[in-house]
């Protein structure tokens, strides 16, 4: 029986053993690959990416406007931070009183110092430890003194770092209970960010030999430009999911956008984001960290971008526009654009008012609420104004080119254009002085900006042909800056009218009359207007350029719109008219240049427009029919209006402009934007010929300035005078230089 029982006992044991062997074969042979992969997954350490400096943005002379400058972060080892936080800012100077983590770190430092023989001599082990504890504690006072950071601020930052590390540790140990110390506990953490060079140098000198303090190099985007370029340069922001999705380089490990990366949000930073963006460095660790990184790529900075903008001119033009805006009765804002007419390089893009770049972050609400000045608007390319009389040059070119008028055809100005609508389509002369121009031909019509002449031109062309001519001169399309802020303006067609104008869903003759003098739905940006002036000066249209190559050479425009050449004969009377506007007995006699040898040709415009709404009166209604009214600034939207009401929320039943700018006067007339477009030419240019000499195209728009000739004209004149006088000064300077050199050679 005993033997039997032993037999059964052995059989049971054998069964268990067989089960174990089968299971082992399953684990170690059948599923071996699966566990291999699992182990690799557990061992893989995340790749470390090093951020790359962004390229600089330079002006046309190569002066930096925005650049990444090296800045230093002063970092302290976590063990020392821990001791500081644990002692609430009064760290112990004895080894025994330190927290355990700090003691471990201190012993490591002590060992290192003995090995390197950098320890103070004549100290036994215990005294050396206390000496180090004192050095840890002294760090804080010195750090506060050297960087000028108050100790309270340092403590607050240290506490924040400590909280973050501890919460990270809790998070990690909850997942993996065998973890004893996390990486962050053995790292240095930045306590003083963006220290300037002097602070960094002082810290390096005073504390540089202490391994628990390190001055870590980093970079910071520095805006070196003044407020005149804020709109154009744009700003950086965290990459949104949408931006990352749209990023053409998103598959690129080193160049693609990642969450929390900084990328260009607006302006040039946005346009040239791909070029400015650097190539990040990458450290890939092998499975066994003792093997060291398996790949180590340094970061390389992005490319620099050179603008066509002349920052001196930009500054000067901004001041001139500011003066022009402030000079009139309803100061609010203005814009000016300066182009080199021959190359179509944008020399200045002025939007007034602007703001220092730092204010965007600090005073965004104030900037947003500042109506009507609207400092956030990039007026030069973003705002769509009715072009007013400035676009009469296009109406005229169309009429002459299509043959509906000839250079010498005369149209008689009686004041009102159409006897059936005596109050609607009238000459400005009649409105202002109760007089009429009488007979006008092409040149004199431009000179005097006679409305009935252009009503006639528009009437004969018809709305379809007229808008076609506007488009030919580049209206209704972007001009090639590539800026996301750039508006295409508006040249309405039947389709647009059907969608936007219920009362008359098709273009009619009255639209042609309105459009021919730049009124009605038509809208143009100051940049478009400047390009029209450049087209008149040179006889061809092409998109503008905002960027130069790195060496300062030309770079193609962001727009691929085809250039177009216009007929010189047809342009001749128009140019003659534009010459007479300033230099003859025209509407902008005040815009005559003071620079010798140069003259301005131009066209004024006083584009009537609705006053700007400053605040709205909202009417809300509850289901029981009770109503209330609320007045909110114009930027407050529907949701914000409803937010103040409790459930059940009322419905919005009405919104009306409450306060307007300018306040409508007693006479009740519409306010008008003051326009001037023009170009400079050498006085030697024959009448009606393409501009000779330095030809700068300028467009100026002073919001609610009323009179183009009186308000915008002088601004354009001052900008042109500044530019030409500077050129002549440079010319004289280089002549003198040549003379001097010649003399030197002679002697």
């Amino acid at each position, binding site marked *: 029986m005993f033997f039997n029982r*032993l037999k059964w*006992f052995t059989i049971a044991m054998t069964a268990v053993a067989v089960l174990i062997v089968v299971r082992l074969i399953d684990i170690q042979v059948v599923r071996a690959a699966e566990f291999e992969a699992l*182990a690799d997954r557990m061992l893989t350490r995340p790749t470390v990416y090093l951020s790359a400096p962004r390229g600089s943005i330079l002006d046309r002379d190569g002066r930096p406007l925005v650049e990444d400058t090296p800045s230093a972060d002063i970092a302290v080892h976590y063990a020392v931070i821990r001791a500081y936080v644990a002692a609430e800012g009064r760290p112990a100077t004895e080894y025994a009183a330190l927290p355990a983590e700090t003691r471990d770190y201190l012993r490591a430092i002590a060992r290192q110092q003995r090995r390197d023989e950098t320890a103070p001599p004549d100290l036994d082990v215990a005294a050396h430890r206390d000496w180090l504890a004192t050095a840890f504690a002294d760090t804080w006072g010195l750090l506060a003194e050297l960087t000028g950071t108050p100790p309270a601020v340092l403590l607050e930052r240290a506490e924040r770092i400590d909280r973050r590390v501890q919460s990270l540790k809790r998070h990690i140990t909850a997942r993996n209970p065998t973890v004893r110390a996390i990486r962050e506990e053995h790292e240095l953490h930045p306590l003083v960010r963006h220290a300037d060079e002097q602070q960094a140098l002082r810290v390096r000198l005073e504390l540089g030999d202490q391994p628990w303090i390190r001055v870590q190099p980093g970079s910071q985007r520095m805006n070196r430009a003044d407020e005149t370029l804020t709109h154009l340069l744009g700003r950086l922001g965290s990459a949104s999911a949408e931006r990352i999705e749209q990023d053409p380089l998103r598959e690129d490990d080193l160049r693609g956008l990642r969450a929390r990366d900084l990328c260009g949000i607006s302006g040039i930073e946005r346009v040239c984001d791909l070029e400015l963006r650097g190539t990040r460095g990458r450290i890939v660790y092998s499975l*066994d960290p003792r093997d060291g990184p398996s790949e180590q790529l340094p970061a390389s900075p992005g490319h620099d971008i050179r603008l066509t903008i002349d920052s001196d001119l930009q500054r000067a033009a901004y001041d001139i526009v500011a003066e022009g805006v402030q000079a009139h009765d309803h100061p609010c804002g203005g814009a000016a654009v300066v182009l080199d007419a021959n190359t179509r390089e944008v020399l200045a893009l002025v939007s007034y008012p602007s703001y220092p770049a730092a204010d965007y972050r600090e005073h965004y609400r104030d900037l947003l609420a500042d109506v009507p000045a609207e400092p956030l608007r990039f007026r030069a390319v973003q705002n769509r104004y009715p072009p007013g009389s400035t676009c009469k040059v296009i109406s005229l070119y169309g009429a002459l080119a299509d043959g509906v008028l000839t250079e010498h055809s005369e149209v008689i100005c009686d004041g009102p254009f159409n006897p059936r609508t005596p109050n609607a389509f009238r000459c400005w002369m009649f409105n202002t002085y109760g007089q009429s121009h009488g007979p006008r031909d092409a040149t004199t019509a431009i000179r005097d900006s006679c409305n009935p002449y252009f009503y006639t031109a528009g009437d004969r062309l018809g709305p379809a042909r007229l808008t076609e001519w506007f488009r030919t001169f580049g209206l209704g399309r972007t001009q090639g800056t590539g800026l996301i802020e750039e508006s295409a303006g508006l040249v309405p067609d039947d389709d647009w009218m059907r969608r936007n104008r219920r009362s008359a869903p098709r273009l009619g003759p009255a639209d042609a009359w309105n459009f021919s003098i730049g009124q009605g739905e038509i809208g143009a940006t100051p940049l478009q207007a400047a390009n029209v002036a450049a087209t008149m000066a040179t006889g061809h249209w092409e998109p503008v350029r905002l960027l130069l190559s790195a060496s300062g050479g030309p770079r193609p425009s962001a727009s691929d719109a085809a250039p177009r050449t216009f007929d010189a004969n047809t342009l001749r009377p128009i140019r003659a008219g534009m010459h007479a506007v300033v230099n003859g007995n025209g509407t902008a006699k005040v815009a005559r240049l003071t620079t010798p040898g140069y003259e301005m040709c131009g066209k004024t415009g006083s584009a009537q427009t609705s006053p700007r709404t400053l605040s709205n009166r909202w009417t809300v209604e509850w289901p029981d029919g009770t109503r209330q009214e609320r007045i909110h600034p114009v930027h407050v939207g529907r949701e914000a209006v409803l937010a103040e009401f409790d459930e059940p929320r009322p419905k919005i039943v009405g919104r009306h402009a409450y306060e307007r700018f300018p306040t409508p006067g007693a006479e009740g007339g519409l306010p008008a934007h003051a326009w001037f477009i023009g170009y400079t030419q050498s006085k030697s240019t024959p009448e009606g010929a393409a501009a000779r000499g330095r030809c700068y195209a300028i467009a100026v728009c002073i919001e609610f300035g009323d009179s183009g000739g009186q308000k915008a004209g002088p601004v354009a004149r001052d900008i042109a005078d500044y530019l030409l006088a500077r050129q002549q000064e440079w010319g004289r300077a280089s002549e003198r230089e040549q003379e001097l050199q010649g003399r030197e050679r002679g002697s």
Partner: protein
Amino acid sequence: MSKRRPALSSNLLAISLAVPILFLAAIGIATIRASELDPGGAGEAVAAFEAEVQADWITRTVAWIGPLSLRQLAFFATGIGLFLAVQVLGYRRIGLYAYWIYGLVIVLLALLIIDRYIVDLPRIPVIRNTRRWIDFGAFRIQPSEFMKVALILTLARYLRFRDSFRTLPGLVPPFLLTLLPMALILKQPDLGTLLMLLPVLFAMLFVAGARLRHLVLVVVVGLATLPVFYVFGMKDYQRQRILVLVRQNTTDEKWHTGPGYQLRQGLTALGTGGVLGEGFGGSTFIRQGLLPEEHNDFIFALIGNQWGLAGCLLVILAYIVIVVVGLEVALVTNDPFGRLLAVGVVVMIVAQALLNICMNIGLAPITGMTLPFVSSGGSSLWANFIALGLLVNVALRRPMLIANPPFEHGE
């Protein structure tokens, strides 16, 4: 009924026991040394030695050999000593003191409980909220490990000339003898060691000839109360151990990084070992310290990682050889006490080995349980060597009896 009386030469006995035991001890010490290489595991002890300031040559040598493996070597040497010491007296003389030994260990176990409930005694450290050890300065002993040997001796002595246990009431005394230490160990608490007493009891009763239906009845009643025990008797962490077993193939990563962590790390260590293993030190996975308890309860997984399926099979083969030799000793002994002793020792060693391996490979719930002769730990090694000494003692002192072989009851 067997009549066979094969001769068991002492040379053959010596070789066939020495080879597997030395193999197990050697692979154990090598693996413990390997576990000291990685930073997350016992290697921190090495770092602690290096950290000391004025390291003399002794300290450096200790650091070089590895403090844990050095301890294990020392325990191994002293274990051999205990093994030899057991040979001094005949096992039947030792059997005379069985109840005294049992009583002594019970007193030691009781001290731990007194420390917990009544008065705080010196030399009883509280480690991870358990009281399992008595501290003797240089080493700590774990009385519950010695309880296994004491229980084998006591049961063998109690059962040797009886057949009262062939009735149901007669089963009560041996069960009481087992349940008393179990109750004491339960309060340490140390579930793994506690459960190892049951197979010893059942196996000894079984081979001594207790009626099968009685044993089956006890087992069935025990199993029947298990669900009730699961719901009401177990603590949350104990229930979780069983869930770990049930849910080991879930795809829920949270489970594997939480409660299921230990088991999956063990399986991964085994799986990455493959057929022939990664060699001494194991794979990067091991050297990164990703296998907890690698020198202790999960040493089998580390062996599997270093020497693969081949190493695992050799370890199992070593235990099989011990079982075969042990049972052979039981068979050729006529003395009832010796017979039971031999069976008890075999069961004690092999049941613990099988259970430890099963928990390493996900066939049994994880409880604190060492792999005999392999895992790090002095008390376990000493207790196993004493037990082995008893086995050899039985083999070497066969009484020449004319009587019938004992326990050959007619069914």
